């Protein structure tokens, strides 16, 4: 029985590309930012990832991990990933030496619909490694030339030395973005806020809640509280976006692992409007 129209010869859905580690930079404890180039530059030139999309990075013998794009190197066009050492695969990535190759497939997922957000007040809320996909939003906004009425970036960490990308905040501010930080536990010399990220939402100036867009990435509890705080400030539910996380194995909607209710997080997400997922997120262990 013939099914489908074409008869492709390569199993393109699983196609791995070789990428090479060209630089790495320590950010905070157990988190580093890595820059990779495609070994085949033709593949690199065709590769375009939107903010909020992710790649599957692969180290043979260890496996794959879903890692968000955290931006694109401005000088080289290389892909940039900020990675937290979490287990098998990420540990193996941390053991790579400059010049070594590994596998990459992607980009996958829907990404943030940034184009729809023009002229809006964008509020980015990131906790921990959740800032990684938001950094690519920040990069896109700085490079896009689109106009936004205002950009506010709220960043939370456990302690001052766990605030991701702190060396870049001044650059972001010089692009006209408002950057606020908060920590759970302060250390000596910390002048900033203490408390959870959602509490920062109460403090920001919000001229028109109906023209605000909230983009959250971080632990689910943090995102849920951020949504509640945003709703409290009058921001409509369908203008609040979450980037969700589930274990991903295939990233192409075939393995079934990343399901949340009717959604496959890998293909329908990872970015969702709050009103799409809020009922699902209320049910424990769904």
């Amino acid at each position, binding site marked *: *029985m*013939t*099914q*489908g129209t074409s*008869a*492709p*010869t*390569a*199993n*393109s*859905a*699983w*196609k*791995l*590309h*070789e990428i*090479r580690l060209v630089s790495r930079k320590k950010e905070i404890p157990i988190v580093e930012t890595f820059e990779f180039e495609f070994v085949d530059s033709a593949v690199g030139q065709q590769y375009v990832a939107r903010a909020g999309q992710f790649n599957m990075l*692969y180290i*043979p*013998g*260890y*496996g*794959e991990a879903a890692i968000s794009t955290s931006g694109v190197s401005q000088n080289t066009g290389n892909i940039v990933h900020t990675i937290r050492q*979490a*287990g098998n695969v990420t540990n193996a990535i941390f053991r790579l030496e400059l*010049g*070594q*190759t*590994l*596998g990459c497939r992607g980009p996958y997922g829907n990404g943030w619909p940034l184009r729809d957000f023009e002229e809006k007040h964008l509020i980015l809320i990131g906790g921990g490694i959740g800032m990684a996909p938001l950094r690519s939003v920040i990069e896109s906004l700085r490079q896009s030339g689109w106009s936004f009425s205002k950009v506010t970036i709220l960043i939370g960490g456990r302690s001052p030395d766990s605030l991701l990308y702190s060396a870049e905040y001044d650059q972001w501010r010089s692009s006209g973005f408002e950057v606020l930080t908060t920590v759970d536990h302060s250390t000596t010399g910390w002048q900033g806020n203490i408390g959870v990220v959602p509490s920062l939402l109460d403090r920001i100036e919000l001229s028109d809640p109906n023209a605000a867009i909230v983009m959250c990435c971080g632990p689910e509890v943090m995102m849920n509280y951020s949504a509640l705080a945003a709703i409290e400030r009058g921001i409509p539910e369908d203008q609040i976006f979450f980037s969700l*996380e*589930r*274990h991903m*194995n*295939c990233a*192409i*909607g*075939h*393995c*079934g*692992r990343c*399901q949340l*209710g*009717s959604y*496959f997080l890998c*293909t329908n997400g990872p970015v969702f409007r709050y009103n799409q997922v809020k009922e699902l997120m209320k*049910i*424990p*262990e*769904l």
Partner: protein
Amino acid sequence: MNDFRYFRIDQFPEFLKQLMQSGYRVIAPTIDQEAIVYAEIQSIDDMPQGYTDEQKPGYYRLQHTGNQRFFDYAVGPHSWKRYLFPPLQLISTSIKSQDGWTFEDHVDEGEPYAFLGVRACELAAMRIQDRVFLEGSYVDTNYQNRRNASFIVAVNCAVPSANCFCTSMNTGPKCKSGFDIALTELSDGFLMEIGSSLGNEMVTPLGFPSATEEQLTESESISDHATEQIKKTMDTTDLRNRLMGQLEHSHWKEVADRCLSCTNCTMVCPTCFCSHVEEVPDLNQERVDRRKSWDSCFNPGFSKLHGTPVRNDTRSRYRQWLTHKLATWHDQFGESGCVGCGRCITWCPVGIDLTVEVAALCEEEP
């Protein structure tokens, strides 16, 4: 209107020979460990004759009928998914290079299989897996190659089992489409319905005569009789919404107390498509194969996130299974994920019957 032909029982070997001479390896019902399973055959002698099956929740037995009929049983533990979506598949191989790794995709051209004895519910299951692997955002080209390489000889069920409920799921017992040829086993031979041009090319050289009115009528009455014999039902009216409104029903806990979380139901289900990929290095770590194997939402590791399963108990895993099959599948693929074959009922070691659980779950809590 499809073309209908007829051949006598003693011409069955001719038909089989024609399949083989056309280059197909024929996979058909055989008996292994006292169950009907699908395996390669060389002649019709490899197929069971004179058997039926008795199925109940958690129960399967083959019985002799004393006659010479070929297809008087329903489906066994195997489904054709094991050939189209094999339990273990090579995806790619990584080869160590000077500065890291290079990668080779594994291409499966698709073995030319003729599946002989595909039931109506199984045709529906194939269409369901097509939606998953061929009609989503990404195409599994190896699956497509296997699908395209196959030739389908369906069989209209004459003797359903007590666990069959295809009539409720609107998938059987009569084969309507999705086959190259469909057979009905009559009293003295087979009615042959030609469902595709490929099927037509296959049978034309055999020169079997057109079916008579009587033969067509006999076939109809066999299917009608099969339909009447199916007693198990599931009320599918608005089932998606009814189930999704009961995600916190106390009955989930009640089923979980019986469920062994053994994964049997998902392994035997012809539509379940979940898988995971493993790394298989050679001894000196210079070649690493990536192998995809069947997985199940009943495995704790299936939903692992940050070291702990999201679905951390049997209750939430059973709920995922049942709501996926009967509710969220509709949102994902526009139809139910259950074809009513009854395998999960038969092969559940403790005899959990989804039709019974669905009825209980749809009752309002006291």
